[in-house]
């Protein structure tokens, strides 16, 4: 049926010889669907479907290590999770980590972007050096930062010992452990913020800066009137991405402190993991995970709202 392709490409009706499924599928009107289908299917199977299953799970009291048939318990899991003090404590911990880390990333990322905005000899190589932390696996960062924080051999401890003369145990106190995690996370991801801010900085039209030069505006005014409006959107985007990602923070915490000491650095993600795979309270874990998802959606909506407001104000 060599004529099939030509017919389909011409977009004409199939020949009168009858219904040709290949031509039907390849017709221009249906091409959109055909092109998009593989992606939608993959996403559905791997994301949407599990999502719905997860939701379903949370309404039962399924425990993965028991073979009993689960009962339908409506919202009891949600209730239990929301009234659990432990859960709120974890949320608090997570909030502290997210807030501090993202703030730190913003500051460092911004400073780095300013540094790399102009071209200078060796820029390419130095930029790669700064991007490297982002390219390391969480395991590497987690494990080696643990080494850095190690009381006897760790670099941090040794450096501090020069001043205080005593071994410095970073991870022994809740505050210290939190700071340790925050520093590790911020160090890893500030380059990401830097990339976004850099993209904004270089997209400002040169003639605006030239006009400011002619107008003899000082550094601060140039920043406020020209630079900042251009990068505002990107900064918000960076904040959104990093907030969501840090919310899900699991790997680093798990590897550096295992949530310790005690449970002071246990973030929500670690707690859910524990609940599901250590205590086998599968349904409850699902309920909690959904609540986290809800929080993320709220945060995203807030961001979209903020973006819409800034673009309307223009």
């Amino acid at each position, binding site marked *: 049926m060599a004529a099939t392709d030509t017919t389909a490409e011409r977009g004409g009706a199939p020949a009168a010889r009858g219904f040709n499924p290949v031509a039907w599928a390849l017709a221009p009107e249906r091409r959109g669907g055909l092109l998009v289908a593989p992606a939608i299917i993959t996403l559905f199977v791997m994301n949407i479907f599990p999502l719905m299953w997860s939701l379903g799970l949370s309404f039962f009291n399924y425990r993965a290590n028991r073979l009993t048939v689960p009962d339908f318990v409506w919202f009891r899991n949600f209730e239990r999770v929301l009234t659990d003090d432990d859960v709120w404590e974890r949320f608090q911990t997570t909030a502290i980590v997210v807030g501090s880390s993202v703030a730190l990333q913003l500051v460092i990322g911004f400073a780095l972007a300013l540094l790399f905005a102009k071209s200078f000899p060796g820029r390419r190589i130095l930029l790669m050096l700064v991007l490297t932390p982002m390219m390391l696996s969480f395991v590497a960062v987690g494990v080696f930062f643990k080494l850095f924080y190690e009381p006897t051999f760790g670099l941090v401890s040794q450096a501090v010992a020069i001043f205080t003369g005593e071994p410095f145990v970073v991870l022994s106190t809740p505050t210290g452990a939190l700071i340790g995690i925050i520093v590790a996370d911020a160090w890893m991801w500030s380059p990401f913020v830097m990339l976004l801010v850099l993209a904004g900085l270089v997209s400002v*039209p040169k*003639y605006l800066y030239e006009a400011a*030069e*002619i*107008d003899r505006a000082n550094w601060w005014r140039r920043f406020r009137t020209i630079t900042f409006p251009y990068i505002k959107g990107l900064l918000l985007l960076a904040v959104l991405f990093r907030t969501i990602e840090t919310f899900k923070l699991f790997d680093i915490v798990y590897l550096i402190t295992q949530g310790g000491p005690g449970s002071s650095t246990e973030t929500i993600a670690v707690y859910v993991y524990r609940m599901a795979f250590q205590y086998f309270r599968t349904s409850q874990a699902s309920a909690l995970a959904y609540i986290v998802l809800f929080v993320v959606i709220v945060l995203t909506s807030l961001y979209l709202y903020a973006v819409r407001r800034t673009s309307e104000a223009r």
Partner: protein
Amino acid sequence: MTAAMSETTAAGAAASEIRIEKLTKRFGNLVAVDAVDLTIGAGEVMCLLGPSGCGKTTTLRMVAGLEFATEGAIWLGGRRVDHLPARQRNVAMSFQFYALYASISVADNLAYPLHAEGLGRAEIERRVKRVAEILQLDRIMDRLPDQLSEGEKQRVAVGRSIVRDPTCFLFDEPLSRLDVQLREQMRGEIKEVLSGLAKPSVIVTHDQLEALSMADRIAVMQAGIIEQVATPHEIFARPENVFVAGFIGTPQMNLIPATVTGREGRRLRLDVAGQAIGVEAGARAEGIADGASVTLGVRPRAFALTDETEDSLVARVDIVEPMGAETLLHLIEGDQDLRVVVPRTVRPSPGEQVRIRHAPDQAHLFDETGRRVSA
């Protein structure tokens, strides 16, 4: 008292002029501006006119301080500035894309350059108000640049320049983004505004109509050098070389290659594509020998259809282009194209043979190097 006054005026005059000496800009091997000399007096409007790539914008930017010269010197108001960055030169510049600050209002845009002068808020407000009145921006003072029309944006850009007291005013293609009607209107407005200020102004443009109507003097540039500096009238009536002659004037001047066949006093006999005509030549044409190649320049409106066979050319009508009150005829003779503008009432048809004759005092003659040799 008078002596003191004239002294101040003289000093004042020198104090507010732009002087460029041997200004050169090289980008690697490319010479964008080649040893340009130019002086612009107080209150004078100078237009840098030329095709794109001729170096006019680069020259302007060097005066502004946005580019540093490779060689040469620049004096602004008696002060040598070529080593100073833009912010120390106290120049005002209006950009082609307006360069308005999008995040602040029109009023704040106008006030922007004044913050660097350490003026009080009352003074700033007063000046902004005055400029807004001059340029009719009163009603849009609170708007953001995004909400303005092209014409309004252009006026704000100009306003930002005149709200200050700079040593000179620079404009980079100020009207290029406006439609034809707006352009006409703005040309008049800008000229009016600039004439009220006693500072030198430089306007860069590629539109000759703009230059001819706004400038006190025009500097025609090509490939980094100034071909001619003169008043609009001079440029039009006595172009110094073939390039200027062909660049100024619409429709374009006819530039006809010819050979000198003889001389009768001040008249040269020329052979134009096999036809013979006589042309008035000036003192500079003395040295031209028989057989030399020259270029004859006649503007389309300097030609008229004629029946006389003396000193006239024969050609065939190719295309007839009505232009309203006039008609543009495209003629062909051999491989030479000619353009002639005739009144509406004259209507030859395509394919017809016609005779054209140039008005006697409106013929331009250029020697083989392109230099003007006619009167």
